């Protein structure tokens, strides 16, 4: 498995408090990794450590399979918190500073990048007069300079209007599909994140509590009949032999999830009971993505 980013036990401590605690994250090549957590959960701090803006207290970071981070970070583009822009310069002048800093010799790279992010017609307008969406696009333009292989975007759609959000979403999908850029993106807007992410990581109070793919997430959120039984093996046998149900799983001891015949759960319950399966609970369940994440994150309004 080729990982673009792999961290092991990454920890950041301020005073006696670990704001990022033992985080082991795995971002696969070509994926769009949605990083989810409440405000203050440690997302930005984690991203800043990966980007080299903050030093870890403990743990290791591997980028592109290497621990020579200074060398590998050249291949990363970042937009962390607010984009770093000079308010008294135009969009072109801001990108000219970045072009020179990064040693890009082609002067037309500035024009091309402005064109790419849709800011080529801003002319002599100073960046301080830009809208939030335009500034975010400038931030993405800076992150995309030097054609990175890995993009780190912290809340890139914050403060954008629906049209701006769609533009950024389309841009990310284009970069991922056409340029094969791996993306680590954090956002509070779970609905939007679920439209682009292929993998997820959930952070709570500095701890990465789970990592999973979109497929796994769909499976977890799938509608099913959940049975809490005395003997899950016996129940599974009855489901297969008498009801000919094959689409079920046993996620944990004493629990069986049935994904078919959901329209006739009465029959399923009756057959199992007649066969002598001890049923403690039986109910239909299934969540939307937001509900699932809320459960993982322990609820709260600011997710």
């Amino acid at each position, binding site marked *: 498995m080729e990982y673009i980013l792999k961290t092991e036990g990454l920890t950041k401590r301020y005073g006696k408090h670990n704001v990022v605690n033992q985080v082991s994250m795995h971002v696969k090549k070509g994926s769009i990794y949605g990083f989810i957590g409440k405000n203050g959960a440690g997302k930005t701090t984690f991203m800043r450590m990966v980007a080299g*803006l903050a030093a870890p207290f403990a743990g290791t970071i591997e980028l592109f399979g290497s621990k020579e981070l200074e060398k590998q970070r*050249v291949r990363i583009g970042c937009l962390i918190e607010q984009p770093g822009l000079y308010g008294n*310069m135009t969009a072109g002048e801001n990108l000219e500073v970045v072009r020179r800093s990064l040693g890009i010799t082609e002067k037309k790279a500035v024009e091309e990048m402005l064109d790419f992010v849709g800011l080529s017609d801003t002319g002599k307008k100073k960046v301080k007069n830009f809208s939030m969406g335009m500034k975010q696009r400038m931030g993405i333009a800076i992150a995309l300079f030097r054609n990175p292989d890995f993009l780190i975007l912290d809340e890139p759609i914050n403060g954008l209007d629906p049209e701006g959000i769609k533009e950024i979403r389309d841009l990310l999908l284009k970069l991922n599909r056409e340029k094969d850029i791996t993306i680590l993106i954090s956002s509070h807007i779970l609905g939007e994140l679920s439209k682009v992410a292929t993998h997820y990581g959930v952070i709570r109070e500095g701890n990465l509590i789970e990592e999973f793919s979109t497929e796994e997430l769909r499976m977890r959120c799938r509608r099913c009949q959940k049975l809490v039984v005395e003997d899950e093996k016996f129940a599974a046998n009855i489901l297969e032999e008498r009801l000919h149900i094959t689409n079920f799983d046993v996620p944990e001891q004493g629990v069986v999830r049935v994904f078919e015949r959901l329209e006739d759960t009465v029959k399923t319950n009756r057959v199992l009971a007649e066969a002598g399966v001890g049923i403690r609970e039986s109910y239909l369940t299934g969540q939307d993505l937001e509900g699932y994440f809320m459960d993982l994150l322990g609820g709260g309004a600011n997710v």
Partner: protein
Amino acid sequence: MFNLLSAECFKLRKSKNLYICCSVVVFFIIFIYGMLLLAENIQSGNVQNGTGGVYVTQEATTEGLIMENLNVLDFYQQLFTGEFISILLAIFVSILVVEEFKSGAIKNVVGKGYARETVFLAKFFSAAIGVALLLLVSAVVTILAGLFFLGEHALYPGILADFGSFFGLQLWMSVALSAVFVLISEIGRNVAAAISAGIGVVIVSGMLFSGLDMLFKGSGFHPSEYWLICMSELCPAGGFETGYVVKTVVVSLLWIAVALAAGIWHFKRADVK
């Protein structure tokens, strides 16, 4: 480093900070010349004493007219005996450095394959270039305005050589002082705090070193001879001895080394927001 310097020069070119500070220097020099002209007119009886709040006690008949006794080098030396230039440098460097942190633009270079020390040094060189431009403007305006206000006697034969030497020493000390201000700004990372601390250093250090001189009185050791602001104020306008020049260069170099080492040490450990 070359890439970073190229970007820094571009930023300097676009920097309002530099143009405003240069304008302030130009205005200040012309203002002082203007004040001297007014004083001379009072002295010669053309204008009533006290006009514009200017009072002249020096008799024209015994000591000559004020501007007759003045040349551009004297005038330029006077610029450095006050704290005006040092305070202006503190303001210029503070804004130049803190702007990077305030705008977040420092994130565009940190973690982009450059070592932190390279980023810090590039900022110092940028400040040094800006300081050099400021001093160059002050020198050119002093000479040109001097010719206008003082007339031909503003330039005596050989004055340009002395002026060049004085300018070179002041430039070298100012660059060293800018390293100290870069250090203060990097640690402060707030424009108001950095400017306040910088001006505080300029104003308080003179008194502090005078006190230290008194403390070491009799030992032959004068701490103020090793502090940049005192050195700048006491720098002679001519008759430069090799020993003095070497001492000035070496002490300034030491201050640059100490300030940069401390700044790099801090910048390497500090998080960038």
